[in-house]
């Protein structure tokens, strides 16, 4: 059921896409890759600096979708200050993303950065 040889976690997240959707009234961060038009959007609900709930939206390849789903899950329960600990490198390792898909992991890092800068400017 994964005939294309995607890394198992990428495949599962792409197929299930947990936390896909919108969060009315949440904070909305976005990131995009110029080259191929991939986009990620993250909406979070916070209590003070703590993230209570999150949803993502994605346009792009399966790895992009998986990164969006994974981040939406990962941020829940985190303090804002913990977000900066997450990096492209860790995303790649966690989801076993191959070299030629580094840009998808980078998109995830960008998404978190965008969320952080939003919370700072707020």
């Amino acid at each position, binding site marked *: *059921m994964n005939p*294309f040889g*995607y890394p198992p976690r990428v495949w599962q997240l*792409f197929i299930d896409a947990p936390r*896909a959707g919108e969060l009315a009234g949440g904070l909305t961060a976005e990131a995009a890759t110029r080259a191929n*038009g991939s986009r990620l959007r993250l909406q979070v609900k916070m209590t003070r600096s703590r993230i209570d709930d999150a949803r993502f939206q994605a346009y*792009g390849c*399966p790895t992009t*979708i998986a990164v969006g789903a994974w981040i939406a899950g990962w941020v829940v329960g985190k303090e804002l200050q913990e977000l900066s600990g997450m990096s492209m490198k860790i995303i790649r390792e966690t989801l076993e993303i191959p070299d030629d898909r580094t840009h998808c992991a980078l998109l995830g890092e960008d998404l978190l950065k965008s969320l952080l800068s939003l919370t700072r400017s707020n």
Partner: protein
Amino acid sequence: MIYLDYAATTPLDPRVYEVMRRFLEPGGIHGNPASDHAAGRAARGAVDEARAHVAALLGATPAEIVFTSGSTEANNLALKGALEFLDPAGRGAGRHVVTSRTEHKSVLETCRHLETRGVRVSYLVPGVDGRVTAQQVRAALTPETALVSLMWVNNEIGTVNDVEALAPALRERGILFHVDAVQAAGKIAIDLARVPIDLLSLSAHKFYGPKGVGALFVRKKPRARLAPQMHGSGHEQGMRSGTLPTHQLAGLGEASRLALAERVEEDRRLRALRERLERALTALPDTFVNGAGAPRAPGILNVSFGDVEGESLRAGLPDLAVSSGSACSSATRESSYVLRALGRDDALAGASLRFSLGRFTTEAEVDAAGAQVGAQVLRLRALWPAGRAA
């Protein structure tokens, strides 16, 4: 798995398998058709029979059939062989060839090679219906034009070039006409007794025969002359040396016989199935049928899906064997030339699927495929409801 990639390759017809077994199973006919003893003669008889079947499929004579390892080789032999014959010392320097940008790579790359030998090549651009017209070809001819190479049926979208209208015009001018009929042979009516095509390629594995065998039709009257591209013991009237693979040729022969016998009925059946699938898919908003504006071969349906990303669409259909563009270039992930000619932008071309139906495709499969594609398109669009443009 639902297999809807018959244009990439077909399963062997069980009847073809039965014929091939006679040459493969223990105690089967295993001699070398070139051998001068009983074992060789038995094999030679099978080769002759196969040749007659291929000839019949095309409306040709057996002596006009040159067996090859497939259509890549047949296309190479046709183009390089014809140009080299005209200019034995080099490869046809100063000559001109007309072809189209939407040919298969085995034609395009061979043309590129000919260019390194000093041949000038014109690559025609298909019209918005995906076809190259006889008029376009005629307008591209020059006094130096030695050969025109055009596919009969496009492998990506199934559109049919009107090679029958073009052939007499080229014959009149004494220009060789090569047709890549890989997606046409066994699928649409071909009668070379009537249509003055000089060289025509086909490949068994596209019509329920084995992979690794094909044929080049080389007309006898008037005689199309080729320099051999595979030198050796002089098989195939000196045009193509190499031990004849009896089981492969017998498979090609039987596949040809079946295709000819069942073509009309199968054409009707496949068109009905394709229409059914087309209806199901176009029920989704923002879907575009590619090549719908032109006559199409029966089994191919190419559809572009708006607002979804191509790789995710294909990955989201793991139970469906379909192709994005031609299987041969799937690996390279190049955007399809013919889809761009039809006006699809890169994203839309990338989010296109080629469904190709065949002899073993059922209504149930078509319905299941339609449902799976519909569900996945809707799911992916829901993941980014704003739409691609947003």
